[in-house]
């Protein structure tokens, strides 16, 4: 086996690993300026993104493809630890995109920040973990890959080590994260005990020989809880609000835009096989066959999804702080995404994936924008945003677009994703229609808190003392900077997000078609 053909498919991962090591090396040699270190991260993630897109079969980039076509969506052997699925590749692209945007925007962080190498290094390392999650086909591989991301993000959250809020957030995330990790490994151990393997595809099939129902259900129960931490499902979400609030806002953007999707995709990976196995009707994993595992899991996940979006929304209603409001909205969005696996059909997975894709641009970019605006001296409260829309129309409109997209207003990407998702739920018929109803009612509820921000931004007069003129970090006046003083990196990241929100919102076919095809393969392989 020559190294090229073995390592080739892992080119994006290797790139990121090299990037991480290079950045840590820069730290050692004392190169710590944000721009230089960040440039490495941007370059590495951007390049990796290109490779992933090429692997996805995007024709203009075909020459960059490194994974042999036969290896993608190949039927599982039942023993491999990793496998390339096109849905996984799409998720890799989503993760890389999130990191790319965050690192791009972080180029505009204060350049005297001595933690820049650590920040970017951990960022790239966490992304590497996420990429590995996306190709996992083994439970332990999956959980360990998640831990790569998790440990890196604990440290990212606390990396502004002079800020007690940041460290408190890191501590909270650590405690709940470690607890959840323990629980998920415990669940994995139970499943291992039941089936004697940890291969995800094999688990469901092996069990047909004579599994143990309660042990399996307990195992899946532990796994649900463990993964729910990452995906911020209610009631495992409480940490997320504090952490999103306390973490440096760019890290929050990464958490919301990137790392939480790891949890959702882990749900896809872990639960698709048991759900599909029963759904295809080839038999029950249980000896007595009286209870079908698939519907049980679907109901449980469905309840969690509804609970998550409802509680997230209700709590967001009364929030006075911008970041916490966005955090709660992020939680409720996780509920929508979970619908995908709760329904478990290819269309639903496609819808959820699109929702995740959209969320990078909506929520991730929103946090990036909040970070930029905070740097202008605008306070943490929603009321502090008074008059922003009229003072800085470009920023206001961009933020408004993100919020409208989050609310699911037509002609934005958020609408398309919700539309496809809920359509898929209805298409699945049966009690899944209620998931669509719950989702839609929740999106109606969510409109209130988004609309409140819009009202504050556009319809209320600014409070003068909250908006010091010329308080733009970086020393450049707004006349020189195209995006009103965010700095080029952040402005570019936000611009990309806004373009994506509108473009995909108006013509989603290219993105949606790719996702749908991937989801179909995913389901076909998983079954």
């Amino acid at each position: 086996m020559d190294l090229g053909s073995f390592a080739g498919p892992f080119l994006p991962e290797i790139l990121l690993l090299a990037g991480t090591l290079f950045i840590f090396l820069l730290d050692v040699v004392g190169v710590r300026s944000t721009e230089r270190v960040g440039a490495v991260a941007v370059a590495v993630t951007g390049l990796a993104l290109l490779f992933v897109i090429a692997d996805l079969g995007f024709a203009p980039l075909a020459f960059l493809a490194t994974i042999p076509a036969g290896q993608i969506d190949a039927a599982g052997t039942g023993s491999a630890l990793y496998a390339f699925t096109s849905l996984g590749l799409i998720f890799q692209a989503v993760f890389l995109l999130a990191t790319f945007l965050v690192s791009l925007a972080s180029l505009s962080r204060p350049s005297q920040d001595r933690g820049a190498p650590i920040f970017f290094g951990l960022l790239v390392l966490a992304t590497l973990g996420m990429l590995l999650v996306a190709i996992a086909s083994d439970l332990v591989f999956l959980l360990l890959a998640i831990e790569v991301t998790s440990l890196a993000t604990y440290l990212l959250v606390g990396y502004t080590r002079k800020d007690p809020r940041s460290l408190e957030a890191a501590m909270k995330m650590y405690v709940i994260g470690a607890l959840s990790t323990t629980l998920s490994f415990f669940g994995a151990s139970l499943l291992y005990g039941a089936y004697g393997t940890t291969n995800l595809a094999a688990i469901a099939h092996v069990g047909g020989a004579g599994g143990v129902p309660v042990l399996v259900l307990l195992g899946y129960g532990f796994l649900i809880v463990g993964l729910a931490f990452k995906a911020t499902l209610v009631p495992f979400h409480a940490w997320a609000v504090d952490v999103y609030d306390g973490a440096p806002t760019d890290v929050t953007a990464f958490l919301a835009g990137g790392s939480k999707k790891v949890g959702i995709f882990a749900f896809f990976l872990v639960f698709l096989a048991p759900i599909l196995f029963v759904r295809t009707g080839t038999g029950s994993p249980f000896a007595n066959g009286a209870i079908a595992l698939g519907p049980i899991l679907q109901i449980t996940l469905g309840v969690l999804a509804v609970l998550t979006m409802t509680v997230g929304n209700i709590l967001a209603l009364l929030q006075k702080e911008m970041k916490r409001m966005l955090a709660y909205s992020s939680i409720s969005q996780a509920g929508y995404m979970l619908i995908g696996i709760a329904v478990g059909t290819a269309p639903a997975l496609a819808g959820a994936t699109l929702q995740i894709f959209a969320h990078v641009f909506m929520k991730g970019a929103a946090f990036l924008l909040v970070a930029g605006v905070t740097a202008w001296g605008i306070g943490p409260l929603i009321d502090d945003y008074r008059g922003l829309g009229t003072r800085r129309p470009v920023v206001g409109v961009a933020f408004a677009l993100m919020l409208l997209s989050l609310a699911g207003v037509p002609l934005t990407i958020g609408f398309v994703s919700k539309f496809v998702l809920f359509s898929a739920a209805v298409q699945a018929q049966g009690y899944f229609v209620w998931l669509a109803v719950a989702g839609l009612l929740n999106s109606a509820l969510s409109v209130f808190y988004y609309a409140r921000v819009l009202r504050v931004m556009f319809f209320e007069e600014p409070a003068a003392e909250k908006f010091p003129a010329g308080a733009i970090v970086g020393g450049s006046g707004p006349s020189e900077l195209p995006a009103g003083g965010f700095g080029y990196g952040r402005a570019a990241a936000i611009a990309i997000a806004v373009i994506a929100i509108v473009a995909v919102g108006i013509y989603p076919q290219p993105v949606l078609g790719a996702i749908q095809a991937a989801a179909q393969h995913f389901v076909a392989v998983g079954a």
Partner: protein
Amino acid sequence: MTDLPLVGFIGLSAALLAIGLFGILTRRNFILLLIAIEIAMNATILNFVYFAAYTGGTAGLTGQSIAVVLVGFAATEVAVGLAIVLALNRLKGTINVAQATELKL
């Protein structure tokens, strides 16, 4: 080759997990929290080990491998936890988690 009933191990690991969870829920000292987490983690490792022992064959080896990896992982996790708590201690002068409540509601 020894023979032992499986149920005993299940009971032990369940008890250890419960103790660990109890500790996480009640202890306010961060070090104690770490210890509680480690107790729970050890329950998990124990699970892998005895399931491996009962499974046998390659599958059993897999279980032991997982246990080995997990031991390493748990130690790393403790180190990270300590790092965070030391930084927090430097700023706040306490490692009582009940006093780190700046972020709430």
